[in-house]
Each structure stands twice: as structure tokens, then as C-alpha cells.
């Protein structure tokens, strides 16, 4: 049946355009259905991912709230976009915070999640995403080497502010063999994170006075 229609209208460009539009319509319907079926599960997976990352930088014993839900947006000066801060509370008091920081690595953006306790000490840092060279810069990933654990327990006072550099630049942190730019970017990003916490400490304390959301 279709063949006879094709023979009759095959020379008309509109016929082919309509055919292609038909394919596009079917594709669109399929994609909408696919999205409807999967979007709930995908959202759930993202929440699980977030919970898992938060657990790695803030020990579960430190807080008694649902951190992934308990978040506030901190607006900084005009240069930086607002930053999402996850709050860890224990008995209604601020026990720690976790937020993302990022730096420019050798190949592109490095995104980190860091957890800080209420006194400004680092509880943990983890790489969320990076595009560093495999075998060299990717050792910042906790699966590849334990370099990232060097930050645990550090704060703006220890090592002193001018020591927040890699050893090659006269600082306190080891570089990775064969990669200096990557650790340099990570150290700088973590330091900026600590400075952000220091500057926003009062705001964060005040915001935990209210009821947990």
C-alpha cells in the first residue's frame, strides 16, 4: 500500500518532509515516555550518590540530621555564584559543613567535595569529577592513591597560611610524581574552601539556629 503512495508522491519534496516529520514525532513520543519511566529512578540515584559522597567527607557519627536535605545557599560577592552548603547538625548545633569547591587542573575543571567541622578543621576531601591525565594527575582520586587523605585534620592555622602550597612551591603538601599542576590546583581550591568557611562562619552559625528543614 505504501509503495503505491510512494510511487504517486515520491517526486514531491513535501512527501519526504512529512515522512521525516513523522519519524521525528515517533522519536519525540518515545523519548517522552522514556523520560517519564526513568526520571524518578534517576532522581533517586542522584540523591543516593549525594548521600554517599557526603558520608565520605562528614562521618555519620558527627551529625543526627539528613544532610542531603539540610542545605542553604550562601551568596558571596558578585564574582562568585551562590554556593550550596550542606549542614551537619548534632542536637540542633552546627557540627560541620560540606560544600563543593573547584579548581583549574592540567586539562580542565576539578570538582571537589570537602567537609569541615565547626572549628574549621578538614574532615575529608574527595574528588567528584576531573579530566586529569590518567596515570599521573588522576592520583588525586582516592581509588588511585591516598594522596587526597593528606588534607584530613588540616586547617587554615596548621599548616600556616603561607604553607598552603605544594612542596615544590615551598609549601607543606606533597606533589604527585610527574604531576605538579594538578595537586597545586587542588591545594588552592581546598584553601579557598577554608577561607570561604572562615568568612561565612557567622552566617552559617546563625542559619542553624532555626529549625532543621
Amino acid at each position: 500500500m505504501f509503495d503505491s503512495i510512494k510511487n504517486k508522491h515520491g517526486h514531491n519534496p513535501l512527501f519526504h518532509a512529512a515522512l521525516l516529520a513523522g519519524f521525528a514525532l515517533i522519536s519525540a513520543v518515545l523519548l517522552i515516555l522514556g523520560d517519564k519511566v526513568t526520571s524518578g529512578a534517576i532522581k533517586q540515584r542522584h540523591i543516593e550518590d549525594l548521600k554517599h559522597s557526603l558520608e565520605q567527607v562528614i562521618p555519620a557519627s558527627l551529625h543526627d540530621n539528613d544532610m542531603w536535605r539540610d542545605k542553604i545557599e550562601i551568596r558571596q560577592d558578585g564574582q562568585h555564584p551562590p554556593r550550596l552548603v550542606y549542614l551537619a547538625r548534632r542536637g540542633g548545633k552546627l557540627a560541620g559543613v560540606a560544600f563543593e569547591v573547584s579548581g583549574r587542573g592540567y586539562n580542565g575543571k576539578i570538582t571537589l567535595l570537602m567537609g569541615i567541622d565547626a572549628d574549621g578543621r578538614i574532615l575529608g576531601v574527595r574528588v567528584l569529577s576531573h579530566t586529569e591525565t590518567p596515570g599521573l594527575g588522576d592520583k588525586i582520586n582516592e581509588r588511585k592513591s591516598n594522596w587526597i587523605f593528606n588534607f584530613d585534620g588540616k586547617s587554615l592555622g596548621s599548616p600556616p597560611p603561607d604553607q598552603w602550597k605544594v612542596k615544590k612551591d615551598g609549601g607543606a603538601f606533597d606533589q604527585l610524581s610527574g604531576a605538579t599542576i594538578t595537586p597545586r590546583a587542588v591545594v588552592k581550591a581546598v584553601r579557598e574552601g577554608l577561607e570561604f568557611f572562615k568568612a561565612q562562619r557567622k552566617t552559617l552559625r546563625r542559619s542553624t539556629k532555626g529549625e532543621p528543614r
Partner: protein
Amino acid sequence: MSVNYKRIAMDGFWTNNIVFTQLLALCPLMAVTDTATNGLGMGIATTAVLASSGVTVSIWRHFITHEIRIPALVLIIATLVTLVEMGMNAWMHEMYKVLGLFIPLIVTNCAILGRAEIFASRNWILPAFVDGLFMGIGFTIALVSLGAIREILGSGTLFANASLLLGPHFSFMEMTLIPDYKGFLLFVLPPGGFIALGFLIAFRRIFDKFLEKMIPGALTPKDPVLPAEVEEAAN
């Protein structure tokens, strides 16, 4: 009209292998084959898309006119890849986290468009499915073998992180072949991939010559007619 399924399978698997013979799809090949595990994951995902796009294109082949075939095929393949990506993200999340970046790249894999145009749009559903399946398996073999060579030479391990992809039962596959290996960065990066691929193709040629000498006619089929040609003649 009889369809020579053995011929289709052999074609996809070996004689007309996407990588070793057609030299197609080198971009995803170089991007993911730094470890054998990544190669395997990409191979499985590509095979799924090849087989399903073969079936879909074959079902609609009478409606895909010659004039709109390229946009229509791209549309079908892109839709399938997006559905595979959403499904993986929702139900195979661990695997998605490893391969997620590469899944959209499957759309740009010219081998899939090539098979849809050359084979699936001219053949009945079952041959199209078999062709997609075995082209995919052949591609997977190429990805895994190149990945294994690059991983052993580059990092000294084999199938590292296989349990992330296949589940904890497969942790026995993870091997450290060269302990305390310092690593050979060249093979982790794409240039090493090209070098290894060159050697693989050379070895394949030598093997084919050897096979031809041992069993004459093993690689030159007695029935040279492809199903596509059979059907076109029948029309």
C-alpha cells in the same frame, strides 16, 4: 531465498570486522580502551545499540525513502542511544558512572550508521538483528583486546575495576600482572593506542595468511551473495 546467517556472523565477527578491517569507529576506540574493562563496557553498550538499531531500521525500511534516509537513520540511532542512556542511568547506575561519558558518543559511531544504511535498511528483521549483534561482538573483541594490551603495558593490570562494571562476583577478573610497575604513560594515552592497533592489524593479517595456507578458502566464502543482494534481486 535463503539467508546465510553463518556468513553474516563471520563477516561481523572477523572478515569484515568494524575495527580490524573497516578501520571505522576509531574515535570511541581510542577514547575508552585505556583499560580492558572500559572497552568491554563500551562494547556491550555499542552492541546493544547496533542490534536494536538494526531491528528498528529493518522494521521501518519501507518508509525510509532514499531521500531522507540519512536524517531518518540518525534520528532513530540518536533516540535509541538516548533511551539506552536513560535506562542505564536509572537501573545500572554503577556502570553508568563508569561509562556515562562515552554513551552519547555511540551516536557519532559511524559504524552504526554504516550498518543501518548498508545492511539493515535492505534486509529483513532477523538478518538485520544478527548482523548488528555480530558486528557488535566483533567491535567488542577489538575493544577488549586493544584495552587489554594498553592496560598491561600502560598500568601492569588487567580488567581493573571489572567488579564495578559487572558486579562484585567478577572481582576474580581483576589482576595485577606486573607488581610494582611504574606505568608506561604512552600506552595509557591515545598515541599508544594507535601504535598497539597497528600491531594488532599486522598480526591479524599474518594470521589470515597463515589460515589461508592451512585451510584454503577458509576466508573466501563459497557463497559470495550477501542477503542484501538477494532481496534486492527478488524485488
